[in-house]
């Protein structure tokens, strides 16, 4: 099947070359980081996790959101998503690979990564996160490979794959729940220590992931002339609408509880995000941007007339994705550390090496998506012909 990814026009190869270039730059900077230490990042003694871990967290959500096409299709026999499931699974695979790479580049001693398995520690959530994320990758590789080979041969997938698909559904929820538990179980960080962090993560994931999938489908329609059809995108739009509304609702819950209860240690983080703290206004414009984008997103998505217009829908998806990325892929992790448990207000902003390494990881993800989508589309075009 891989040979399909080796045939393409100039634009295709140009895109691949661009991604390889970004990966190469990322790799060079990673080697620099390996040599110098994580000091090349903006991280420091007080803000110990930043851009890498934030991307990891955000992408676990994108990976988990694959379940939003898998669940209706396999559990409710929702045929409209037929063309979409494998694309959703491929996106999940690419996201999980990026997650793993983001963890890897964040580690101080990456060559000791095997210690997590050599000395398994069930009382550590990070151990469980590693287990469920690895498991999710394996599940998705098996499922997408088996169902897609069957499709290619024009036969029904073998019956043994069904229980594995069913298992993958709660598993998808588990990866983001366990990732939320990484944060919400820490008494030292009041900003994260909220019981609705896992539900919040799931809600934002089920909005951001499908929004990305809609955009990818529209890109594929334009670039590869492969159309998944109008209906599945409209159904995804409904899912995005509900998930985004729930996510905004959850954030308002958090704001109410924190502001009304008025516990200084909890309130300080919210102040830092929306007003700035002791002169540190680093995230203030971002947070207001995220809030405004969220409102625009909801207006465009809830109104059926705008949602049903594909051009507007595409715009709404971009807006939704950006709003959620700022909230979860930037602010959530950083704000947990500011102020510090001692009440100090440190500063953090990703450095250029940190950013370029992250872009390298994203390029790997895009390469995986490109290659897998190319294979899927080529095979389907041949089947249709």
């Amino acid at each position, binding site marked *: 099947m891989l040979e399909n990814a080796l045939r393409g026009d100039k634009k295709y190869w140009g895109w691949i070359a661009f991604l390889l270039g970004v990966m190469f730059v990322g790799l060079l900077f990673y080697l620099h980081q390996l040599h*110098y*230490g*994580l*000091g090349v990042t903006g*991280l*420091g*003694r*007080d803000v*110990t*996790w930043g851009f890498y871990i934030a991307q990891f967290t955000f992408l676990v959500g994108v990976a988990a959101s694959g379940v939003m096409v898998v669940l209706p299709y396999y559990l409710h026999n929702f045929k409209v998503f037929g063309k979409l499931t494998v694309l959703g699974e491929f996106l999940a695979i690419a996201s999980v690979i990026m997650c793993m790479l983001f*963890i890897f580049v*964040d*580690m*101080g*001693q*990456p060559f*000791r*990564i095997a*210690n*997590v398995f*050599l*000395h398994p*520690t069930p*009382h*550590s*959530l*990070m*151990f469980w996160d*590693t287990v469920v994320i690895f498991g999710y990758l394996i599940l998705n590789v098996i499922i997408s490979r088996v169902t897609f080979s069957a499709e290619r041969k024009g036969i029904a997938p073998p019956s043994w794959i069904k229980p594995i698909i069913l298992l993958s559904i709660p598993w998808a929820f588990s990866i983001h729940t366990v990732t939320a538990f*990484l944060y919400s*179980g*820490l*008494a*030292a*960080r009041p900003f994260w220590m909220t019981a609705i962090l896992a539900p919040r993560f799931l809600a934002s994931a089920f909005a951001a992931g499908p929004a990305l999938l809609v955009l990818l489908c529209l890109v594929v329609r334009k670039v590869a002339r492969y159309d998944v059809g109008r209906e599945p995108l409209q159904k995804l739009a409904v899912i995005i609408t509900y998930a985004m509304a729930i996510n905004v609702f959850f954030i308002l819950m958090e704001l109410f509880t924190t502001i009304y209860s008025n516990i200084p*240690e909890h309130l300080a983080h919210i102040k830092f995000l929306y007003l700035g703290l002791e002169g540190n206004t680093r995230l203030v414009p971002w947070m207001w941007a995220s809030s405004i984008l969220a409102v625009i997103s909801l207006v465009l998505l809830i109104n059926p007339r705008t949602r049903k217009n594909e051009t507007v829908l595409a715009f709404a998806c971009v807006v939704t994705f950006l709003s959620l990325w700022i909230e979860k892929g930037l602010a959530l992790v950083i704000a*947990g*550390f500011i102020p*510090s*448990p*001692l*009440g*100090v207000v*440190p500063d953090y902003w990703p450095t250029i090496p940190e950013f370029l390494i992250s872009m390298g990881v994203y390029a790997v993800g895009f390469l995986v998506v490109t290659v897998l989508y190319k294979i899927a589309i080529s095979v389907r075009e041949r089947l249709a012909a």
Partner: protein
Amino acid sequence: MSVDRRKFFKIAGLTALSLASKPAFEVFAEGVDPVDSTATIPPPTTQPTGPLTAHRWAMVIDIHKCMAEHGCTKCIAACHLEHNVPDFGNPKDEVKWIWKESFGHAFQEQENEHLHEEMKHQSVPVFCNHCDNPPCVRVCPTKATWKREDGIVMMDMHRCIGCRYCMAACPYGSRSFNWRDPRPFIKEINPKFPTRTRGVVEKCTFCVERLAQGMPPACVEACTAQAMTFGDLEDANSELRTALRERFSIRRKAALGTNPEIYYLV
């Protein structure tokens, strides 16, 4: 470990029993080449006092005695010299095992506008609390940090993968990460104690290496004001317990359930 080596150690152990009283390094030390004086001669392992042991190590810090020594940093200097703690000269890369923090930062929940003048302007020494219920140990994915039977929260820098989850979990900011190679930033290297490498977390270990040699922690020894009392919390007759009985003590963020084992007398 292979079976052969087990056997080897067993035999070695039996031989040792028969020679138990032999002074450890006599035979060995005579032959040491005198090229280098910095620490090549191994110290005798059988100290006259033997290792210091306890059921539950803890420390009491008398804030008043400490504050009376305005701006004193002897404990910090002693600790950081002993353990090869680097000085990067910037807060971002900073590594510290023990440092002084303003009373308001160390005890946020105790701060108020009309605080005792001394408390308002002076700082207190803070370091790892060696919690009885340490959150850092709970979150570590490789058991690189764990609580010893004597209560010391220990750190295995050989095993640490540098994920920094422990730093996110510690409510006291007691842990430092090596953002870069620390060696060039150590003014004076103590050859008896290792430095650290890039990418591992480190913190106060209550000087386990000194306790094993029958010496108290370096900070306690260095404190000329005798503001620090180190001892066994489970020994009702210890100096430590007496101090806790007689004076009012507070602990940092005790409400979080970590059960910190550094007590501050106010």
